[in-house]
């Protein structure tokens, strides 16, 4: 386990918690430290508990843990919410002059650091900077060079003028100086710096950047938490690469616009979350049956219905696999880390065009809003390859015309993939329809043609299974008797849990699966293991259902459905607990 440091800032929504956390994360990243963040927020603009948590180390960190070393508490509730994570020697930075914090419930074993945040901020130029004063205080507690904080403040406020930057730097120094002058406590923390250069980004940003890298030029979407960040990232950036973002009137419109752009030949995407996936189910079938390449990003949140819009869940697996009436192939990719959000997005666009079908790219809320540091070459643009499949030009389409010279967009082929001519290609004019169609794309109810078209579409899946690499990611002891399987964002926490389990003498093999459909065959791995656990953030175990069906073997499930992500120590505890107790594991 890395020598880590765990920090959080908490208060009410509207207190600037998110930007405060982001600034400190940026400062740590610029100091050459690895960072992994987690947000706890409510679906409201003001009020309600919200927190931003950072785990940092000079080594790579891939999860948050249930432990806090330094907590900036703007409200009493922040302390209540985090009491269990504080330990002997933890530090709480708070403003005792704030009415609500005068009698702050500081636990006995914790160092309470009373700093007049607001007053010092006012001295520096404005009360709004009180959180920055707290960050300066945190620098003093952790022996963290304040120049790194300056660098983050410049990045954050630089565009708004040097005066604002200077005021913020001054505010930070007032916080630092106050702690150094008024508190003689010896703190245990020392945030050393390195010369390493890291980039810091979240999953939504990685998806947006991956889309641009992959040649996506058109994005249509409707705002929805937690997918809006994808649209906000693309807006203002994709235009510089010849693309366009449009905010549609609803998700029905968004997916239709994206479909239209894709029919015109553009690489197109829409992104949404559960409620939007439901609305898009109607047009999803049209995308699939017209064999149009489209990437649909689903950033999952707690459902059903409006559910818990700002909370974690991996509950939409079945909706993506089975959503929409009728039967039609679609691919489902689920990147397991933030850097993989980038690469799987690129892959999603290539798969969509090569196999001419809709591809669901799914992240969950934790992956989407979590920030993590990476080496910049984790996003090496020279490694991005674009494959457009059977796109034909005027010359190429000649071999796909029938005896009347008509282009056949749904030609029956051995590999199931038909030629694709984009509008504007001479002699390529053709229609297609949501009705079952013949090779010309015209309505048919001919029973033979129906079978041929259904078989053709299914054959694309067989072709893809043969041609593409659907390997999962593997960690831990390959010969271990205990097999853990998960999908999506649980990977980081589980990878760290492996080490914790090993410390307790428990070896596990961990397979992290980014491909939901098509997916790797895990039957042998499941057969070889004595105990198999499938880890996922939902109640029913939707991925476990798939694996059970694939392997016809019994797996035990580790589920979580209270709206909170898995943490590494929790996973380690539940797995070790499950191994020593009954095989039935459920919360």
């Amino acid at each position, binding site marked *: 386990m890395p020598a880590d440091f765990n920090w959080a800032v908490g208060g009410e929504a509207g207190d600037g918690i998110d930007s405060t956390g982001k600034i400190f994360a940026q400062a740590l990243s610029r100091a050459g430290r690895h960072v992994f963040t987690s947000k706890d927020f409510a679906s409201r603009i003001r009020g309600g508990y919200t927190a931003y948590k950072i785990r940092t180390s000079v080594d790579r960190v891939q999860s948050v843990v249930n432990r806090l070393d330094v907590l900036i508490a703007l409200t009493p509730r922040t302390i209540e919410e985090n009491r269990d994570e504080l330990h002997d020697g933890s530090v709480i930075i708070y403003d005792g002059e704030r009415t609500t914090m005068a009698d702050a419930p500081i636990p006995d074993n914790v160092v309470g650091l009373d700093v007049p945040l607001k007053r010092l901020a006012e001295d520096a130029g404005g009360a709004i900077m009180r959180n920055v004063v707290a960050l300066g205080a945190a620098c003093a507690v952790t022996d963290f060079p304040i120049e790194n904080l300056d660098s983050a403040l410049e990045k954050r406020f630089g565009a708004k003028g040097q005066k604002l930057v200077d005021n913020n730097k001054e505010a930070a120094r007032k916080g630092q100086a106050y702690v150094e002058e008024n508190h003689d406590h010896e703190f245990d923390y020392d945030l050393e710096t390195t010369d390493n250069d890291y980039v810091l980004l979240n999953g939504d940003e990685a998806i947006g950047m991956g889309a641009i890298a992959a040649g996506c030029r058109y994005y249509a979407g409707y705002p929805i938490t937690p997918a809006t960040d994808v649209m906000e990232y693309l807006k203002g950036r994709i235009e510089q690469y010849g693309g366009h973002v449009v905010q549609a009137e609803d998700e029905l419109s968004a997916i239709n*616009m994206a479909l*239209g752009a894709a029919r*015109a030949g553009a690489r197109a995407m829409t992104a949404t979350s559960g409620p939007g996936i439901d609305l898009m189910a109607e047009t999803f079938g*049209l995308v699939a049956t017209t064999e149009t390449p489209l990437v649909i990003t689903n950033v999952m949140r707690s459902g059903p219905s409006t559910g818990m819009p700002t909370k974690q869940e991996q509950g939409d697996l079945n909706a993506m696999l089975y959503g929409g009436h009728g039967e039609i192939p679609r691919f489902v990719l689920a990147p397991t880390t933030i850097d993989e959000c980038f690469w799987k997005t690129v892959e999603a666009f290539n798969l969509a065009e090569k196999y001419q079908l809709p591809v669901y790219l799914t992240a969950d809320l934790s992956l989407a809003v979590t920030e993590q540091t990476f080496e910049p070459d984790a996003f090496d643009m020279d490694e991005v*390859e674009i494959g457009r499949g059977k796109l034909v030009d005027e010359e190429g389409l000649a071999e796909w015309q029938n005896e009347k010279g008509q282009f056949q967009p749904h030609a029956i082929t051995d590999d199931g993939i038909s030629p694709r001519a984009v*509008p504007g290609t001479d002699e390529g004019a053709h*229609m297609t329809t949501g009705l079952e169609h013949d090779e010309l794309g015209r309505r048919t109810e001919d029973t033979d043609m129906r079978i041929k078209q259904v078989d053709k579409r299914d054959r694309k899946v067989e072709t893809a299974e043969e041609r593409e690499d659907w390997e999962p990611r593997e960690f831990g002891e390959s010969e271990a008797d205990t097999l853990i399987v998960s999908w999506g964002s649980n990977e980081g926490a589980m990878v760290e849990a492996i080490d914790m389990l090993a410390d307790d003498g428990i070896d596990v093999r961990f397979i992290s699966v980014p491909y939901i459909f098509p997916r790797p065959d895990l039957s042998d791995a499941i057969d070889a293991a004595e105990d198999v656990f499938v880890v996922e953030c939902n109640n029913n175990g939707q991925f476990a259902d798939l694996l059970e069906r694939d392997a016809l073997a019994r797996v035990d499930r580790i589920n979580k459905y209270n709206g909170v992500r898995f943490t590494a120590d929790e996973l380690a505890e539940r797995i070790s607990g499950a191994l020593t107790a009954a095989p039935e594991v459920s919360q």
Partner: protein
Amino acid sequence: MSSDVRFTDFKSDKQPTWCPGCGDFGTMNGMMKALANTGNDPDNTFVVAGIGCSGKIGTYMHSYALHGVHGRALPLAAGVKMANPDLEVMAAGGDGDGYSIGVGHFIHAVRRNVDMTYVVMDNRIYGLTKGQASPTSREDFETSTTPEGPKQPPVNPLALALSAGATFIAQSFSSDAMRHTEIVQEAIEHDGFGFVNVFSPCVTFNDVDTYDYFRDELVDVGETDHDPTDLESAQDVILDPDKEYQGVLYQNEQANAYGAEHGLTENMAEIPDGAPENATDLVREFY
């Protein structure tokens, strides 16, 4: 675009299954003529059709075309045009498709003002499902699902469009072939969202809004002193409770179309073999 394109080039070899005498024949012929007259050819034209009798038009015309889901033709067509501004884009559907299930998209398509043409074949009835009330059916129009009439006023699509900020509103009659063609042609030539409500009678299920009715009652604004560039004049004809009109009822040539407003000029289908030049700038932002 070749100059020797004839309107029959836009005709597919599929025979329409519309009822003999259906207004949709005339509506479609006018669309094909207008497309040919404006210098388009099937390979640069994209037709998006909705669901209903009218939705079959994509099959009977020859061009790039997509026959979509019910009510969603407009956003689909907008996506096509935004991605490739070189294409001539036309959406077509019925009154149910556009003014009932798709009315939300209609309002926003009007506001968005994408440079395309929207032809609504308005027969004031649901024909394909064999005769139920549509949003433009008269208040007392008796059908299987409304035996005493809908008992609610019909939608006035022209007024909806005007209130949503339309830049081109027209109405035509499928049987008046020359005027219908001229009007659709003007809609195509309009730099923005060209909306044409076409009276396209259903001879099987609507015995009220018939050829005779429109022939007798329709007033051509071309034969009046109506000024389509004058908003008040447009309001007068569009909200007239006593008469129905054909012709270009309103046109605002000052407003920018969506593409001009957003600087869309490139065909987005064309992309490089790898990440775009300068893509590494995106990574640098995250330092």
